[in-house]
């Protein structure tokens, strides 16, 4: 049996894997993407699709800068991807809101943002705390309980399902094989360099390997001398039928898609590998949405779902090359929609070139979790 051989094998065909693979393939590398089947834990199919900046970076200013960079790069990335895939991913950056339903919520919001921006070495970005009247000028449908909110002009959103399809289409057009139903079971470093990936669909060989398997990374990483302590964090989402456009800015928990449906999100639950939905949580999501926008009350819910976020202990990404097995990389994060531009433009090409430049990526090494707690 001869295994097929590539320059780079990307494990995982979600948003991170697809963006990294596309970025790598565009440098001319021969790339292959391996993925699981139709039923899999795949955050990329169940997320909220915000390209979001406000509130990112508490505890790691480099992450705030990384996020702002992606937000700035997104429009160009969407254009490029649109040209190569023929798919408009409906990216918009009209600025986004976090709304408060009480003075206490608004105060907490203002305090948080102030603390975030007062961090040393923080790359500040513009934001404002708006009172009810100013919010209403921009979001005319808010209900009487809304007391105000925070607004950040860098916030935007996209259609993340179109994004996933566009990346897969662009990969196909670039001649990059996408092998679904190839769940990687074992990765064996080869003597003379390179890797052998044993999967449910066959064996693949590659000079380099990039782990982009979301929550699957935790199990695969140790095979390559890496530690990727990600855990699943459940988020439930409610979505409505299509409605005439009424909401021109994304709100962190309510956004209207380019197709007209209204997405309502999204819970934070530590429930392990379980994508069940529950009426208590979806009901609360619905309840808050109706309080924010009362005229949604009679709009019909057509679906609810739950998906698993890929969470590191501090919530920030991990980008790293294995020291024991050079050529083995990991790229994993929450906020893979927001960071898609960076992944395609920076992470993919640098992995294809075989090196993650320390000046950009050192802060994102998982070694940060090894540091003993200060006494």
């Amino acid at each position, binding site marked *: 049996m001869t295994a097929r051989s590539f320059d780079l094998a990307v494990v995982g065909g979600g948003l991170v894997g697809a963006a990294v693979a596309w970025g790598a393939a565009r440098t001319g590398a021969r790339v292959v993407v391996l993925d699981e089947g139709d039923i899999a834990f795949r955050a990329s199919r169940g997320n909220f699709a915000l390209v979001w900046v406000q509130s990112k970076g508490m505890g790691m200013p480099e992450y705030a800068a990384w996020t702002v960079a992606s937000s700035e790069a997104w429009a160009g990335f969407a254009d490029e991807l649109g040209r190569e895939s023929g798919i408009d991913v409906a990216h918009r950056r009209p600025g986004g809101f976090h709304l408060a339903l009480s003075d206490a919520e608004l105060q907490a919001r203002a305090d948080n943002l102030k603390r975030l921006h007062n961090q040393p070495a923080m790359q500040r970005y513009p934001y404002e705390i708006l009172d009810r009247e100013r919010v209403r000028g921009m979001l005319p449908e808010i209900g009487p309980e809304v007391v105000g909110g925070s607004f950040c002009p860098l916030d935007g959103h996209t259609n993340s399902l179109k994004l996933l399809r566009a990346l*897969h289409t662009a990969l196909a057009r670039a001649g990059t094989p*996408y092998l679904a139903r190839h769940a990687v079971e074992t990765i064996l470093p080869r003597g003379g360099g390179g890797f052998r990936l044993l999967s449910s669909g066959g064996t693949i060989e590659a000079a380099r390997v990039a782990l982009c398997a979301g929550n699957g990374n935790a199990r695969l990483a140790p095979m390559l001398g890496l530690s990727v302590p990600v855990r699943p964090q459940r988020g439930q989402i409610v979505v409505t039928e299509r409605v005439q456009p009424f909401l021109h800015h994304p709100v962190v928990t309510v956004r209207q898609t380019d197709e007209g449906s209204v997405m309502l999100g999204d*819970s934070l639950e530590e429930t392990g590998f379980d994508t069940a939905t529950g009426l208590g949580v979806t009901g609360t999501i*619905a309840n808050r949405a109706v309080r924010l926008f009362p005229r949604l009350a009679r709009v019909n819910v*057509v679906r*609810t779902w739950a998906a698993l976020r890929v969470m590191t202990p501090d919530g920030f990404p991990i980008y790293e090359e294995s020291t024991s097995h050079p050529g083995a990389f990991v790229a994993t994060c929450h906020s893979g929609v927001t960071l898609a531009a960076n992944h395609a433009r920076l992470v993919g090409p640098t992995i294809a070139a075989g090196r993650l430049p320390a000046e950009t990526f050192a802060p994102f090494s998982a070694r940060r979790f090894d540091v003993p707690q200060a006494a």
Partner: protein
Amino acid sequence: MSPERRYDALVVGAGPAGLAAATTLARAGRSVAVFDEQPTPGGQVHRAVAAVPESRRALLGPDYARGREAVEAFLASGAHHIGQASVWSAAPGRVGVTVGGVAHLVEGDAVVLATGAYERPFPIPGWTLPGVLSGGGAQTLLKASGLVPEGRTVIAGSGPLVWLLAWQYLRCGLTVDAILDSTPAGNRWRAAPHLAGFLASPYPVKGLELLRAVRRSVRVVRGVSALEAVGEDRVSALRYRVGAGAWVEMGVDTLLLHQGVVPAIELAASAGIRQRWDRDQLCWHPEVDAMGRTPLAGLYLAGDGTGIAGAEAAALSGELAAHAILGTSEGGRVSGLLAQRARWLRGRRFLDLLYQPAPAFRVPAGETLACRCEEVTARALGEAAALGVPGPNQLKAFLRCGMGPCQGRLCGLTVTEALAHHSGRTPAQVGRYRARVPVKPLPLAALAAMPATDDERRAVER
């Protein structure tokens, strides 16, 4: 009528299966609520049977009229009928239902899902044009409202309902301009080995005379291999071919499409009941035993929702599920019911194979809409399949097929079979859309009124 908070047993569906289950349970002294989207009991087959004039029952024939007894027995049994009630979630011990726009969570020790069947999608060019209705839909108009098409009327497709509908129309004095029979000729040979079982079942008496009567009075075009509805804002003509012959065009005012019925499995699937692909019926069947028991204690299934077997078998399975709940000892009544049901099932095999719709009418091509709600074409399915998508759920994410208000009921089977076709796999390997609560849309305000624990609220508030 609003439901109470709890009952001994909850039944979803007031067709033959649900009514039999509820009547048996109520007669045994259990408190029972039966929920149905329709206003009156009877299900699809006996729609509105107790509410229509005697003359209508006579016109529609004895199989329809018979439903009245079951409905009257049910109404006398003491079970609660809650009509215009849309059930959007079911689990052991509980169902979620909207009545008059208000959502209720109703508790019950036993839950019986008797959701019946709906018609198999019939994706041909133009099937979304106004004036093109499903055959079952047209039959429902006749049963419940005494409405019949006016002007040039064509019935196209395959399956017993095509002939039954034509027969009922004839009895109403209506002219059916043509029946375009799309049953593949080869089906007869595949069905033949099962003829004996069919003849030994109670089916033939029902069917043969009816077929003859229709053939005498209606022009029947057999071997139709392709069909299109044509029109601007409504259907005005159709085109068809027989075998590889030339296209024939004819003007129509109403085109009625039907190619069999398939189980309504969404509620069972959303409750976590596994589904198995049935190669004869070409649809999904939930995992259930002959008594209607599922792997989930307290959750039972009955009727055509477990596999298509017809009204009589549905009633038997409903009664069996009630006995499973009541703990009636096997033997006696129960083994009699099991034996009767088995006879119907044996006869069914022949019908399943005889009327199996042709692949060309199950896997559309080109610009034909596979998903009506989101207007996803067959071509788009093929292009996405070529990207290597592993299954219907990824396809849905890529194309939005199945994301509209019908929640995939009118494209789910098409998408599974199309993907199987494009990727050289079986439907069983390809799989199906995942069904999630709510399995029927409900107003946001209704969902917003659901009770939540502090933990659940904290998981959302931020």
